[in-house]
């Protein structure tokens, strides 16, 4: 299991022999152990050269880049080494055939909405407020039932949008801090929670990308989202399933424990930008969450949250090879 490095410093990232070294302007340096590194997240302003990129590529290290404001810019993704023509053909077949495509898309969204439901169930009657989320839970369940009958992707996505609307409308009840959050606004996010969601969703996306990279799945061929030209859209599909467990539970907990407050945002930016301290706190917590483990029922092994994503890829591989019908990950504990 490889390691992830998060770099906030400005300075230089370079290859020295078989090492990757970060040096800060004041001359301090740190060696990232390249043999055990899987991913490097860059938040600072770093100089680097092709010698470094060739080396990270050779070591199968993915570099994820974020801009000054903490928005995801892209990833430097090494040449694919795991390629299966057989699987690619089947992946495409499952996209082109609408029946096959919707079957997969449905399972993704049914799993995602199950996990949303479980988040509400978890907070129902909790956190001292005695909030009653029952009604919303029921609504979500009935929308999930409608989802099962959806006939095309648009219909499916429409229902999913309604589920998210109901879900978001209850965040003020789940979160103890006094934040006015009613709906998801993306570009630009207009309050603390929206900014948090944007930042954390991009983390989940990059983690999914790193896990897909370790399999033969092609990240551009997707089922809910349009196959991407701008993004690796299969990552978006799979991320839907894990956002409630990994991202959203973390947001609730960070806010309810007051680990993240208004002070972590640039107030003058209208809460658009997280300060470095805020980003760091989130990343530390995010990393911890990815390493959390559960006992997996089918495998009879302990697996981390991060590894659940890889297992999801394996299930998808088996589905599109027509070996075993895909059942999406649903929170079971």
């Amino acid at each position: 299991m490889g390691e992830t490095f998060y770099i906030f410093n400005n300075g230089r990232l370079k290859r020295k022999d078989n090492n990757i070294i970060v040096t800060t302007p004041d001359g301090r340096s740190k060696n990232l152990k390249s043999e055990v590194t899987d991913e490097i997240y860059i938040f600072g302003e770093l100089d680097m050269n092709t010698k470094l990129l060739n080396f990270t590529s050779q070591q199968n290290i993915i570099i994820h880049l974020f801009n000054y404001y903490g928005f995801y810019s892209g990833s430097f993704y090494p040449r694919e080494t795991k390629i299966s023509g057989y699987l690619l053909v089947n992946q495409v077949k499952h996209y082109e055939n609408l029946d096959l495509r919707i079957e997969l898309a449905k399972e993704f969204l049914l799993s995602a909405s199950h996990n949303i439901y479980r988040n509400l169930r978890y907070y129902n009657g909790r956190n001292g407020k005695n909030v009653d989320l029952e009604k919303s839970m029921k609504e979500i369940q009935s929308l999930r039932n409608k989802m099962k009958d959806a006939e095309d992707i648009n219909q499916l996505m429409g229902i999913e949008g309604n589920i998210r609307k109901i879900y978001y409308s209850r965040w003020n009840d789940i979160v103890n801090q006094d934040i006015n959050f009613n709906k998801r606004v993306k570009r630009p996010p207009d309050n603390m929670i929206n900014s948090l969601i944007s930042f954390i969703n991009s983390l989940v996306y990059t983690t999914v990308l790193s896990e897909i990279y370790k399999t033969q799945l092609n990240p551009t061929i997707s089922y809910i989202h349009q196959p991407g030209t701008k993004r690796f859209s299969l990552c978006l599909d799979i991320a839907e399933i894990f956002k409630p467990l990994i991202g959203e539970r973390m947001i609730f907990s960070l806010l309810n424990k007051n680990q993240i407050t208004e002070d972590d945002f640039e107030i003058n930016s209208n809460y658009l930008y997280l300060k470095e301290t805020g980003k760091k706190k989130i990343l530390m917590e995010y990393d911890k969450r990815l390493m959390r483990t559960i006992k997996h029922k089918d495998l009879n092994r302990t697996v981390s949250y991060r590894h659940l994503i890889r297992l999801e890829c394996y299930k998808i591989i088996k589905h599109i090879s027509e070996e075993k019908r895909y059942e999406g990950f649903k929170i079971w504990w």
Partner: protein
Amino acid sequence: MKNVTGVIFYYYFICKRKLWYFSKDLNMEKGNELVEIGKLIDENSYKREKKNILIDENINIDFIKDWKVIHEVKKSRKIEDAAIWQLKYYMYLLKEKGVDIEKGILDYPLLRRRNEIYLTEDDKYTINNIIEKIDKIQNLHVPPAVIDAPICKKCAYYELCYI
């Protein structure tokens, strides 16, 4: 017929499901660059310095005595059958390429044992048979069932098989 590699031949004796996955390039074992004998011979035309050939993580073949004897060192005799047959398969392939191998040696230094392997006419027949069977497995639409054997626990495909 698809070219049967040494690894695939070996997997035939280990697990047919693994064989199937592997032949679809759903390879779970990382870090083993496979060098196939046939290719090697074509490219290097018997260069003397290329006498130690790593075929995969299990098999490391040494040529001793000027391409007459192939030699393989193993730690344990756990999957001896597979190892013997893989060695025979290499002898078979090499013979087809015109390299006349006399014998193979399976060496277990830890057990202080050596096993000399010869390729008989019968073996050639058996190998042809196996190649045909391998071909059939590769052409299956879905992989053969999980074997549910103790080796599964340590197999790189465990999660893919059991999830």
